[in-house]
């Protein structure tokens, strides 16, 4: 055994960026999913749900692989606990995307045309927040190269604030979409109301988890 080779563990930052990329592929499908759901195209909706489910599973595999390579004896530039929580939060984006897929395929829930704009505007907002996060996640290896110091960190801190603002915007759109939905409560019926509430909650929490993940990176950077 060569001690100098055995000394080096697998750095988690490259794989974390890779995990983010996989989560992004999953989350990106929310847009066509909700679109086809609103259009009433059940086959297409189900097809997209299955795709999301597959991509989410792939993200899980990367997640578990990262966890397997993080034994307690590892010395890292950031706290191991922070990395694990971070990974869990980032993975939740994909989980919530899958939840949306389940919710829109479990029942033939109809949406009045008047709701469609509000729903799509909510979807756009959460995707914007998530995308802002994914752009940061792609830079994780660069941050490692800069050893979590310097102008690179300042730039990331600014971007993290942006994610927070976008999440706030998504919250407002969620409230707006819910309000529009209740305007039509008589038209869609109580069962659909319950389902829509859950869809909105799942959509909103995609943005929430993007913000949480960004906040965890902020914590890691602040400990420098």
């Amino acid at each position, binding site marked *: *055994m*060569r*001690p*100098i*080779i*055995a*000394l*080096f*563990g*697998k*750095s*988690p*930052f*490259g794989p974390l960026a890779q995990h983010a990329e996989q989560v992004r592929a999953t989350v990106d499908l929310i847009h066509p999913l909700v679109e086809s759901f609103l259009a009433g195209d059940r086959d297409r909706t189900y097809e997209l749900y299955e795709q999301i489910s597959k991509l989410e599973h792939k993200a899980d595999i990367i997640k578990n692989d990262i966890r397997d*390579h*993080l*034994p307690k*004896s*590892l*010395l*890292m*530039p*950031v706290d191991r606990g922070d990395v694990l929580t971070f990974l869990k939060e980032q993975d939740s984006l994909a989980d919530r995307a899958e939840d949306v897929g389940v919710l829109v395929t479990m029942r033939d829930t109809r949406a009045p045309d008047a709701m469609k704009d509000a729903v799509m505007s909510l979807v756009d907002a959460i995707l914007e927040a998530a995308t802002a996060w994914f752009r940061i996640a792609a830079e994780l290896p*660069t941050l*490692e*190269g*800069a*050893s*979590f*110091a*310097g*102008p*690179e960190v300042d730039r990331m801190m600014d971007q993290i604030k942006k994610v927070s603002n976008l999440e706030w915007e998504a919250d407002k759109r969620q409230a707006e979409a819910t309000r529009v939905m209740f305007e039509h409560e008589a038209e869609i019926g109580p069962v659909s109301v319950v389902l829509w509430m859950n869809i909105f909650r799942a959509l909103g929490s995609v943005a929430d988890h993007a913000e949480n993940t960004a906040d965890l990176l902020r914590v890691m950077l602040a400990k*420098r």
Partner: protein
Amino acid sequence: MTVGLIIMAAVLIGGLYMAWGIGANDVANAMGTSVGSGALTLLSAIILAGVLEFAGSVLIGASVTQTISKGIVDTQLFDITGRYGDRGPTILALGMLCALVAAAAWLHIATHIGLPVSTTHSIVGAVMGIGLVSFGIRGVDWGTMGGIVASWVISPVLGGILAFVSFWAIRRYILASPDPVLATVRTTPYIVAAVAAVMVLSFIYKVLKNRMDVPPILLALAVAIGVGVIVGIMTAAFTRSLAPPPGMKPYDFVERVFALLQIGTACFVAFAHGANDVANAVGPVAAVVSIYQAGFASVPAEVGVPLWVLVLGGAGIVVGLATLGYRVIATIGKEITEITPTRGFSAEFGAATTVLLASTLGLPVSTTHTLVGAVIGVGFARGIGALNLRIIRNIVNSWLATVPVSAAAAAVLFAIARLFV
């Protein structure tokens, strides 16, 4: 006398074999990362390593060689006035041969079963075994032995601290600066000056020590700083015009410059490694040669290490490097991609400074373990993505195993061989 000649020939072959093994296996630690990062081609790495290993062995190698040839075992106990009478010198020569054979055999077996053993620990343990089997507890100079064991703990820690400080400074003044490119261009001459000064210091100190009446350390310091300043100014003239090619990211530029600087520290490691590790091969040889020159009639108390013995050891290391070492360098270069030039530079600077200091003091330390300590130091400065600290436990275990095992192996071998003279 014929027995003496046979022992002399055998210990020469054994020493050369050991030197070959050191060149084949251990030199890779110095050059592996530079080859891996593309800063050096395999061929230029071998040539540079060969030259510097040889220079380190011949110029600085004598101190540690003396420690192994007569510091661990009280060789005077083997003089003709001692317990063994006329046979004393021959028995000591035989003992040194047994130590060499036992250390080499244990290295082979341990490497085969995957233990992270160190050449230094093997040979020190084996020589200690010879002292123990000949004269029991009083056959070993426990003061020297204590110092050696302490240096095994101190050297990785000191290497770690120096590497930590180096990388901390690089992080603080280059990576974290608003303009890493400008910071690199401005800082590089100082870094080169520091490396040059440290490298020159121990060499000058050694040279002056034997020839001057003035306190050599002060003069050596003055010369080293002078050389450092000159080298720094020369570097500044070169770096002033450095700029990243269009489209290159600032951190990539920093790493590219440090890839060049890392060639310097890799050479530094090779030099320090030669200075320290040549003794593992030629320590026993030097002991036998001094007895041989006294016609096996006495054990000389105060003799230096003949230059040709160091040349022989240095040459053995170079041959090992050329015949097998290049393959190990290529392997290490491929395996360690996590360490970028800024990190490699810091680790190598910390390790080489420590090893060279130990060599100057005549302390046989493990170059590999010091380098491991230095890399961990960079890790603590948040420089490396993931380091497996379990290796520390493995290394400590290998100390605990290697010293007794090689001591016992040498003792058994010696106890049997002794019956025939």
